[in-house]
């Protein structure tokens, strides 16, 4: 028996109208976000229960219009038209309309109506509108539009039941509302063009073909039906212009005139505009000097906070992993399997999991900034700077999001309409310090520049500087790209400033939860796989090292009470030398030594070079690899707790000639390398997906690695002068 398809409900609306909040309120925990956490660019799906029925809910990207000029808008149009092969055509489209900005929001709704689907208006932010002195006669408006309207407050969950019953009613007896009519001359041209494509193409797309100069309809139908159709389209446009229509203005004029007629007598405006909180806050927060200072302070506080606040959580995870390691090690006999489990799997995963708190905190902060409306102000403030880099303020959001993870950052670059700006933003986004670099940063900073030795402000300052490298280099490189490979005229920059509001706890928690889960998933699959490969490369060929070390250790334990401290230390040193010998002749050691001349100018020994190479799948692997290479057997009973942590092991690590492997210049050189390199398979895969060619991910990897090498070289050489 064939399964009966659930009815499908699609959510559309302008950006910043509370669409995501409504989606969350309707779908609850029962939702599947796209592959990556981050800004709403992917289509989100969920289930909605009304009485005993289950409906599929799709959250379409927030758009101002369904005149497809960006990939987001094309996705929305395709889903509503039923052109998207993976989605059924929605049975009802719920259009979320911001009551405090009614006319502009209704513009999008008129386009949805034109697509010929039943529409329900969810009139959101009725409370905000009321506080602005705006009175809307909902019943009358609903009658005039011929569309059910349900007033809601998505953030408080008000009106959701009414919305659900409205959906149920429309599903029972679907009806499409009225929509504005285009002039006869225009419709005549549309009919002529449709004769060329045949009736399978929706009329809506043909209208878009005529209206949107350089839009998606032109590209898609042009590719499908050839130059003949494009010639006819040009001729049609020509005739319309001669008849006195301006293509750019015709649609807006018709729609707004219609909206004006439909809303007549339904809206009562205050005589004087009420000065709102948003007005007052904007006076300060978007102020050139004051606002910029506040912006910098916010950014600095963000990074101090994740370093300090996340610390106790990380401590607990470290303790837990250490306990598991010990328990497993004591329950198993020595041998390759125990080594794989303890030194490969547990320690490898543990070294990654420990950084979950920082990632969760960072994503939570970004979610708060975005949800409260501050992010757009930051973009406004940054536009001047971005304009100098040949980018626009909208590039700021992808770049800032890349500080959490380049993957959602690169995906959120879809909000940039200009393809060159978008590509430039995608290519430089991985330069921004992402959360996967945090493990490397905090490991080395805590180990080599600790508060106890250098003062309370040094770790924060080093962190800040590492982030600053990306913040300065990304726009600089974008400028270079925009004036060479991606030359073209500067695009127009229009961006809406949403009203300030309290961030929704659900949205914030959801985003940080998704980020944490995503990170764990990566730790669990790809990262773990590369960890085990690295462990194997370090373990084999194993010769008789394992048994020699075991014997030496047992002998030492047996005699420990009889020996003086000096001989214990001598024996321990011997054991450590055995380990180091083992590693030196292992597979990894052989490759590492082979590349040592290349990394020597950076101040690295072969082990650091090898760990850097091994972290190609993902930067956080570096930590795990260092753990495997350096974290073994520095087992001084008296200082065990201290040496538990990898940082301690790194400080203890010695070269064969007795010099320390790490010094402050070496640590800084590694830090700078990791700030600049592109050791992240996920980023490269996403760039491939977003640009649709391998050319750009390869380009990104090559230029970033070159930049990282030069940066690390300069850091080490200059660092050694002090």
């Amino acid at each position, binding site marked *: 028996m064939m399964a009966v398809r659930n009815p499908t409900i699609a959510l559309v609306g302008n950006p910043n109208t509370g669409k995501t909040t409504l989606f969350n309120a309707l779908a609850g925990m029962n939702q599947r976000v796209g592959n990556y956490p981050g800004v709403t660019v992917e289509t989100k799906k969920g289930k909605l229960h009304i009485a005993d029925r289950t409906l599929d809910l799709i959250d379409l990207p927030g758009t101002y219009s369904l005149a497809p000029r960006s990939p987001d808008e094309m996705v929305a149009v395709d889903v509503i038209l039923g052109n998207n092969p993976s989605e059924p055509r929605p049975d009802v489209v719920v259009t979320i309309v911001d009551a405090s900005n009614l006319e502009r929001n209704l513009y999008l709704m008129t386009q949805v109506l034109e697509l010929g689907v039943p529409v329900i208006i969810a009139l959101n932010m009725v409370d905000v509108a009321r506080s602005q002195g705006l009175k809307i006669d909902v019943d009358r408006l609903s009658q005039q539009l011929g569309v059910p309207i349900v007033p809601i407050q998505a953030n408080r969950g008000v009106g959701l039941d009414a919305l659900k019953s409205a959906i149920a009613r429309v599903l029972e007896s679907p009806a499409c509302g009225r929509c504005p009519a285009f002039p006869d001359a225009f419709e005549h041209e549309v009919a002529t063009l449709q004769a060329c494509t045949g009736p399978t193409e929706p009329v809506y797309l043909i209208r878009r073909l005529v209206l949107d100069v350089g839009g998606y309809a032109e590209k898609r139908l042009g590719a499908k039906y050839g130059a003949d159709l494009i010639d006819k389209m040009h001729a049609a446009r020509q005739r319309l212009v001669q008849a006195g229509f301006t293509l*750019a203005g015709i649609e*807006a004029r018709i729609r707004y005139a219609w909206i004006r007629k439909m809303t007549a007598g339904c809206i009562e405006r205050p005589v004087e505009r009420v000065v709102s909180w948003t007005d007052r806050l*904007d006076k300060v927060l978007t102020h050139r000097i004051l606002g910029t200072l506040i912006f910098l302070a916010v950014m600095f506080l963000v990074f101090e906070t994740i370093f300090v606040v996340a610390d106790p959580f990380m401590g607990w995870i470290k303790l837990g992993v250490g306990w598991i390691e010990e328990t497993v090690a004591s329950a198993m006999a020595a041998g390759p399997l125990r080594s794989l489990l303890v030194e490969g799997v547990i320690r490898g995963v543990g070294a990654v999991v420990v950084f979950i708190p920082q990632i969760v905190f960072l994503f939570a902060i970004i979610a708060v900034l975005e949800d409260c409306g501050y992010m757009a102000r930051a973009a*406004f403030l940054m536009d001047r700077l971005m*304009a100098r880099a040949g980018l626009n303020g909208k590039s700021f959001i992808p770049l800032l999001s890349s500080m959490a993870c380049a993957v959602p950052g690169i995906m959120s670059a879809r909000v940039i309409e200009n393809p060159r700006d978008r590509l430039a933003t995608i290519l430089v986004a991985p330069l921004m310090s992402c959360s996967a670099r945090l493990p490397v940063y905090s490991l080395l900073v805590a180990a080599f520049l600790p508060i106890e030795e250098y003062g309370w402000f040094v770790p924060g300052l080093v962190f800040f500087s590492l982030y600053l490298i990306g913040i300065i280099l990304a726009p600089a490189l974008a400028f270079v790209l925009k004036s060479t490979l991606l030359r073209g005229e500067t695009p*127009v*920059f229009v961006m*809406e*400033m949403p009203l300030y509001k309290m961030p929704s706890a659900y949205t914030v928690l959801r985003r940080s939860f998704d980020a944490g889960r995503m990170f764990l998933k990566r730790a669990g699959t790809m990262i773990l796989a590369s960890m085990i490969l690295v462990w194997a490369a370090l373990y084999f060929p194993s010769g008789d090292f394992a048994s020699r070390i075991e014997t030496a250790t047992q002998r030492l334990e047996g005699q420990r009470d009889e020996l003086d401290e000096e001989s214990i230390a001598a024996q321990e040193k011997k054991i450590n030398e055995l380990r180091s010998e083992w590693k030196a002749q292992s597979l990894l050691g052989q490759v590492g030594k082979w590349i040592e001349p290349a990394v020597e100018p950076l101040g690295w020994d072969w082990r650091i070079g090898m760990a850097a190479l091994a972290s190609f799948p993902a930067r956080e692997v570096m930590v795990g690899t260092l753990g495997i290479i350096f974290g073994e057997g520095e087992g001084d009973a008296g200082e065990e707790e201290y040496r538990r942590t990898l940082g301690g092991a790194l400080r203890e690590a010695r070269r064969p000639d007795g010099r320390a492997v790490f010094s402050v210049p070496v640590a800084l050189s590694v830090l700078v390398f990791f700030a600049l390199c592109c050791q992240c398979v996920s980023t490269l895969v996403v760039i491939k997906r977003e640009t649709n060619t391998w050319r750009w991910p390869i380009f990104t990897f090559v230029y970033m690695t070159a930049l990282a090498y030069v940066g690390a070289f300069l850091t080490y050489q200059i660092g050694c002068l002090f």
Partner: protein
Amino acid sequence: MLPELMPLEYLHAGQWADVAEVSGEPGWVSRLAEMGVRIGSRVRVVQGGSPCLLQIGDSRLSLRGDWAMQILVRPVAC
């Protein structure tokens, strides 16, 4: 007599005006219209300079100077 037309960019902060003409690439004229910047809409400059911050109806937009030059407005006394 009606006040002279002038580019939006030259409005002072706090000044009100009616949009009289929007020129430029058709795609962007449409985009602006979708966002509410079209002939006849009343705007106020919240913050001058480039980019400037505009109040249009009940929404706030930020717009760059070079583009604000292409929007001609007629200042209104308020």
